[in-house]
């Protein structure tokens, strides 16, 4: 069967285009059928208990949408900064002889600036990350 006369505008590659179109329609149709069938056949009894978050059988306290501690992002940022700079240093090391003393001076300046920034964020407390020792005072409830 020759479909090429029916769809001249699509491309010079008509038969393949047609099968792709048929395939896409079938995929979308099957996906739609599965989604509609499961939505229709699935048992959906929404009770307050079922919609409550599961937490070991206890009613949860508060929300799980919290401000996440900053150190996670800080560490990610520091890694990016110091990791990318390794790329500069490796490329300089490969071209060590052609670049000569001028190159050495430049990379030394680069490394010194890096070190200064490292000490700066060390001093600012950016690397302080670990258990926070908190002395817990005894509970002040009375015995009565």
């Amino acid at each position: 069967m020759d479909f090429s006369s029916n769809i001249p505008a699509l491309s010079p590659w008509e038969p393949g285009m047609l099968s792709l179109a048929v395939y896409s329609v079938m995929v979308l149709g099957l996906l739609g059928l599965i989604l509609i069938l499961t939505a229709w056949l699935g048992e959906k009894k929404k009770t307050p208990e079922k919609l409550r978050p599961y937490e070991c059988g206890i009613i949860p306290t508060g929300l799980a949408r919290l401000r996440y501690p900053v150190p996670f992002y800080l560490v990610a940022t520091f890694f990016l900064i110091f990791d990318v700079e390794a790329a500069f240093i490796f490329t300089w090391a490969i071209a060590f002889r052609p670049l000569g003393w001028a190159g050495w001076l430049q990379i030394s300046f680069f490394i010194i600036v890096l070190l200064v920034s490292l000490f700066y964020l060390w001093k600012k407390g950016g690397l302080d990350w670990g258990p926070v020792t908190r002395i817990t005072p005894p509970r002040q409830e009375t015995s009565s």
Partner: protein
Amino acid sequence: MGSRHQNHTASPGNFFLSKIDLLINWSRKYSLWPLFFGLSCCFIEEATMLTSRYDLARFGAEVMRGSPRQADLLIISGTVFKKVAPVVLRLYEQMPEPKWVISMGSCSNCGGMYDVYSVVQGVDQILPVDVYVPGCPPRPEALLQGLVLLQEKIMKENPTRPILHFDGGSQGSVQPVLVDGVTKERDARGPGFDGTPLRGTAVTPPGFWESRSELMWTPPPRRIELTEPEQTLAQTLTARFGEAVRQEAPTSDMPAFKVDAASLKEVLRFLKTEAQPKFRRLEDLTAIDESTRQQPDNFPDFTLVYHLLSYDEARRLRLKVDLHGQEPEAETITDIWPAANWYEREVFDMFGIRFQGHPDLRRLIMPYDWEGHPLRKTYPDRATAMAPYTEADARRYQPLDAGIYLRRPEGDEELILNVGPHHLSTHGLMRFMVSLRGEEITDIDMDIGYHHRGVNQQSPGLLCHLRP
């Protein structure tokens, strides 16, 4: 082994629907996903059922799920305590439909031998049960048979109609929750024994009338002679504290002293820090309700008992303190032994004895809103003597919110999380409440008593061989 089958409304004449029923039921019965859930010792047998010797996989039910969201079979394996019953009901309700319930073991079926204040007398009072597996505990084979019975029940369901949104049909657990006195009977005497007295009433607290103990010969109690160092210690105590410390003689296991409540802390501090040898460890702290003694005039209302241990010479010591009145008070010893904290909370919980100066005197075992002190002799000793625990109770008496246990100095940046009672690591026994800042635990508290069978209170009313 029993299964209460619902009268399923067959759809006569509908050949097509019944064939789809067959297909769906056949698929469901070989793909049951049990919740990984255990309350007590029965779970050991349930876990054994998973192992290669019994091989639950033969029945298609080996995929134990950690979350109720993915499970459709709840096997109540073990004693359902009143403190954990709200959790059990929540787990059941958080499972998606259709779902089924197997009640495993005597405790879960009817309370079993734990006819005691802390135990629900049958889980069918709070949620529907499809299959009961008797035994204490049932063997893994018995549970397998229960599973097969459930599969047979599933084959009799008509799920096609509800699935296709037609009227009629049935699927999942549709048994009604049983109501005591209406659809179930908690009376342990069984049918036809209405004329007999309830078991053990003649010899259980607080009556003890017609006790045969005076007529019976019993072997004389064991007596020990105090060794020389023990006699020296007794002399030292007498020399130092005078009449406040009186030696109790004879004794059957270890040197015992009766101490005045006023000088108790002084004596304990002396024994811990100055005595030879030093009794560094507080072994135990408990109390006795003396109100049902046969000669009550010889006894106080309550007795506090302290057991001490010396590491240096492996020596034990017992101190007793008399307490008087119905709301007795004693001084806390948490400043001498921090380990006394939970002991004193337990004594307060069980006997209602208050400890002056205790940093945090609240119930240890029973729920925070429990009424009464179970180890007092006046307390109702049997669950069947109390009002039945119902589904409404399981919705009402919720465990206390974790935010009350933990303080949140960091405000909203900390996540409060419950680990347990239903958790793979705690399996229904205890509940940890943690405060999380990022991945760091900043505060933790613990709630126990989810597995409290009240054996102490139950035992005096039972013959020796019946004591659990």
